[in-house]
């Protein structure tokens, strides 16, 4: 829903870091998006395609690393993936609200020159 604004922020952050490193072009831009980040990868791809013109990333490849929702089960002292919005530990069947991964909305890396 708000992927355009988020993509604008990501591009601004990418351009800032590219210029700071003394480079002039972004060849690859990689973001990391968690299942519970509220960001839809397809919408983010669309936003990148629409916004990349006239930026240092105009010719860049865009890569999204999706991060699953991973919870911590205190009873089992182990992590488990909360698939299909099921926060129940597959071992002991207790629900967990302790989300360890899955809310990421990061600019992961840039390939620049």
């Amino acid at each position, binding site marked *: 829903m*708000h992927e355009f604004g988020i993509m604008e922020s990501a591009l601004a952050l990418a351009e800032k870091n590219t210029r*700071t490193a003394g480079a002039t072009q972004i060849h690859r831009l990689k973001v990391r998006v968690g299942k519970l980040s509220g960001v839809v990868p397809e919408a983010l791809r669309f936003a990148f395609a629409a916004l990349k013109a006239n930026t240092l990333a105009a010719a860049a490849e865009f890569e999204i690393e999706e991060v699953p929702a991973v919870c911590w089960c205190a009873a089992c002292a182990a992590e488990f993936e909360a698939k299909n919005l099921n926060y129940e530990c597959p071992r002991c069947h207790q629900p967990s609200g302790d989300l360890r991964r899955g809310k990421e909305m990061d600019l992961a890396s840039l390939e620049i020159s």
Partner: protein
Amino acid sequence: MCQECGCSKPGPYQVGDRKVESHTHTLPDGMVLTHAHDHGSAHGHAHGHAHPHQILNLNTGILSANDRAAEQNRGAFKALNLLVLNVVSSPGAGKTALLTKTLNELKGRLRCGVIVGDLATDNDAARLRTTGAPVVQIATGTLCHLEAGMVAEAMKQLDLRALDLLIIENVGNLVCPASFDLGEALRVVLHSVTEGEDKPLKYPPMFHSADAVVVTKTDMSAAAGFDRELALKNIRQAAPHAEVFELSSRTGDGMKVWCDYLIARKAKS
């Protein structure tokens, strides 16, 4: 997809009667800065040498500017021993009605203040002021959520030392506000019985971010054909860690449990 909402690109917004203009400028090194005010801080100017296809591992939060501002707010709230709620829901789920009732019920028990966000008008602030509590309205303009920096501006118009509980009523929207930490201690998500039973499954990030889920308008359950058991099951599935309350702001049913919870949380803060 919402192309108009302008998330993370705030235009001018208004805190009470005061307009907060932001401006953007680009430094010689290409750094783009957006400020709410003029200020005298110096910005670093670092540059290195270009290498062919250098890899920069940044691992930086795209919304890290908001996250930093939220942590500043959180620190200020903690120093003041102030319990802060961020109340979110879809439009019309009964945020303002719940807050009005809550403020009236807590009179003499907790000293409350409110920051309320809407795209336009100060209708909600006017409703909330009838309780006698201090209220600051943020008119966000086009922005569909509150950001931590806006809350920091609005805080300046409240005497926070004279408060026990600060309630932030967010813009009615179950999507974007989920991503924007305001520095609150508790995120409260409302779910009215007239919205059906599957809102928690349709908006997982928001419901999963809830510390408390409040089912509102319970007096209308029968008229709405509300399946209570199914709704509670869905809430538990989307937010197993959240405390769940059921109440009617109109009849007052369930208000005592909710208010006792706030008082207990305040005692712990």
